[in-house]
């Protein structure tokens, strides 16, 4: 508890161990979990995740955890419970401790393991118990607020990533060494503060994904991914579903130096995957060989036909991608009239004939530079 409300940073110097913040994003798309129900019911998955979270917290006294749910139409905090719900949550968490029999009632699948876990909380390390109570009650309210009609097949991973990054940023600010603001002259401090932003806190994001990436969220997801890469926060991804491929998260793992694993072949082994693949933090990973990806699909989807292409045309103004030269060579997005280059470029080894020089001056192709004269020597 102390860790969460940021009071812990006053004791950091004493312990000497770098705290590690694990931000967990759980994809809670109801459809995808329904499809997985045979091999890995949601309740079991939550129980496994809780074991993993507890293992992370047990690693160090200062370790922290934050858990978000990426639902089909919103992203919500599960573990530091949002204070807006405080009144409701305060009363319900008190009820959870002892009389949590009605807990399983909200969702039929919210089965045995979760109930047992919460019921034995009197004998538990209080932090584990409070996290568990918070997650279970948050998930219950999330599920009960979800209407059965119009459930999209995707989740708001971008929103969850964005919120997680903002939280990590705030937490790392609390841990950051006191800035020498009165001494901006020292270039070494100025450079290191921005470059290695969180030397006092190892933050990482783990996304447990069951659904496909939503193309509409591409830009938002990539903005978040680049912000993570800027702050050196690895985004790990565990894909559970055999029916979905979270392409964006796969790219995110590559860009941020995180690990990507797919346990689609055997989803019931979720806990093993979590424990062996994702438990070590950034510091420990330098000594380990992390699971690597053989090949990553980096092909892009064109804006005109939504075809996946490997060679395409890009508007130099708005960077829209097209699979063929658009009609009238006008950009479909920004409407700019585009000049066409010579795309059947010759191999560079071919010696240019002298004759060609004349044509270059008249054309507005790639080679055109605006100044017809060569670079004159200084006079």
């Amino acid at each position, binding site marked *: 508890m102390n860790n969460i409300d940021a009071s812990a940073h006053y004791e950091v110097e004493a312990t000497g161990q770098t705290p590690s913040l694990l931000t967990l994003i759980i994809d809670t798309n109801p459809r995808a979990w329904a499809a997985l129900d045979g091999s890995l019911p949601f309740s079991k998955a939550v129980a496994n995740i809780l074991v993993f979270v507890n293992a992370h917290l047990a690693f160090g006294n200062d370790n922290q955890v934050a858990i978000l749910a990426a639902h089909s139409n919103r992203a919500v905090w599960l573990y530091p419970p949002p204070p807006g719900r405080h009144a409701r949550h305060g009363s319900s968490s008190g009820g959870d401790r002892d009389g949590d029999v009605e807990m399983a009632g909200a969702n039929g699948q919210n089965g045995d393991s979760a109930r047992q876990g919460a019921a034995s909380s009197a004998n538990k390390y209080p932090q584990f118990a409070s996290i568990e109570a918070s997650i279970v009650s948050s998930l219950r309210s999330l599920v009960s607020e979800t209407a059965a009609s119009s459930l999209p097949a995707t989740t708001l991973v971008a929103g969850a990533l*964005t919120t997680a990054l903002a939280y990590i940023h705030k937490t790392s600010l609390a841990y950051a060494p006191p800035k020498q603001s*009165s001494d901006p*002259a020292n270039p070494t401090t100025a450079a290191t503060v921005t470059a290695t932003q969180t030397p006092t806190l190892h933050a990482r994001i783990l996304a447990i994904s069951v659904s496909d990436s939503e193309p*509409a969220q591409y830009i938002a997801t990539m903005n978040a991914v680049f912000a993570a890469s800027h702050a050196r926060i690895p985004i790990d991804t565990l894909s559970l579903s055999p029916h979905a491929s979270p392409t964006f998260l796969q790219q995110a793992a590559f860009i941020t130096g995180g690990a990507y694993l797919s346990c689609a072949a055997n989803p019931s082994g979720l806990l093993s995957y979590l424990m062996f693949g994702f438990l070590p933090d950034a510091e420990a990973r330098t000594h380990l060989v992390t699971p690597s990806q053989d090949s990553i699909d980096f092909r892009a989807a064109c804006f005109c036909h939504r075809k996946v292409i490997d060679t395409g045309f890009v508007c130099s103004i708005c960077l829209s991608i097209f699979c063929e030269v658009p009609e009238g060579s006008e950009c479909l997005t920004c409407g700019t009239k585009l000049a*066409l280059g010579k795309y059947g470029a010759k191999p560079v080894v071919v010696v240019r004939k002298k004759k060609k020089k004349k044509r270059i001056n008249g054309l507005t192709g790639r080679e055109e530079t605006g100044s017809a004269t060569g670079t004159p020597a*200084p006079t």
Partner: protein
Amino acid sequence: MADSDGEYQANDGSDDEFGDHQVAPSNRTRGQAGAPSKGQRRAAWEDVTRTWEVLEENEDGTIKRIETAEAKKRARLMKDTTPLQRGIIRHLVLVLDMSFAMAEKDLLPNRHELTMAYTREFVREYFEQNPISQLGIIGMRDGVAVRISDMSGNPADHLEMLTDWVKKEPQGNPSLQNALEMCRGALFHAPSHGTREVLIVYGALMSSDPGDIHETISAVIKDRIRVSVVGISAQVAICAELCAKTNGGDGSSYSIALHEQHLRDLLLDVTTPPATRVTEQNNASLLMMGFPSRTMATGDTINYCACHNRPTREGYECTRCGSRVCRLPAECPGCSLTLILSTHLARSYHHLFPLRNWVDVPWSDAGRSTACYACLTPFPVYSRQLAEHAPVGLSESARYACEVCGNHFCIDCDLFAHEVLHNCPGCQSDTRGVPDGEADVDGTVLQTNGSASAMEIDS
């Protein structure tokens, strides 16, 4: 749970910056003019170089100075969120003054070392903001221009070359004309769809030129090169003229650094792609690009990459000719197709679709939220004392609202979202109110109320 949070509301949220803890005490001692003990005064003498500025602002009250620094940062955020056409594909030559003038110690430790440190930062930031752009670095020393690094799209190259130059003492006269001529040469091959820019860091008050610099300036204008200058000592007429003429009469690209932090800010401002001028729009063109996937060499084999002739196992295969390159973005060495990752394009989109500024929330509207929507930091609750000591330039309730989704955020999240993230956590996390994306697909219109109340879906 509820207890501990409530406590922090009073404690932690009342001053909205963690940094305030750190700065305030030392500042307060400075305010009580004669009071500080000997040890403290010595520390202040070492730390603060421009005492007159501090004193001037101290007259308003000590807290205010810190707040205005914060407000200034936010003020910088408030500009240009109108979507503009920007030159995303840039070709920039950075010209560094390495003349005798850079040995001055008015910026600590000295101008040269400080510039070098900030240049390294600049290079990183430039390629972060402009992943498909090119950069070259030129130095001015001994009356000539020296090439530090060639035009290249790889930050590692530049940083490597720069380290060799850090230790060299600045010496000789600077020559603006020689540097500009070399810039023209470096930018000569830049294709017409990209921008051509020169950024000069100029510490000297003179230029020792071999010929008429006005001829060079007109040649630079003819080549459509835009020049911006960051001066370190004082304004120089020729630099002002150079900037004004090459930017179509707009002299705002010439600025003088007042102190170290200002120099850094001025440099990093240039990493944002420049808005396209109307007269340049006809240079838009359609570029052919390849989006190769990352592949591993089959079996136990090892490939040589075509770009560096180095053995690698992983690589990217040119989508047109099949040569393997080890690193992107690159130009295929075989067929000179531009090879990039689609994510590099995505990195530039935020320049084209910037996040809208968030607005201050008055106390009358602050009751809606008790904590920052994104990071869950508690907000201060209303009190007479807080309202009277409202900081200048900042939101009086320490809340900032996104106008689209209506959620409230703290100033840290505001700065982070606008400077680094370029996403609004609130808008991205709730599509219940916004009829876009998946809501469009099946034609259902969701309720248009974005507030975080109960979920209602009309189908």
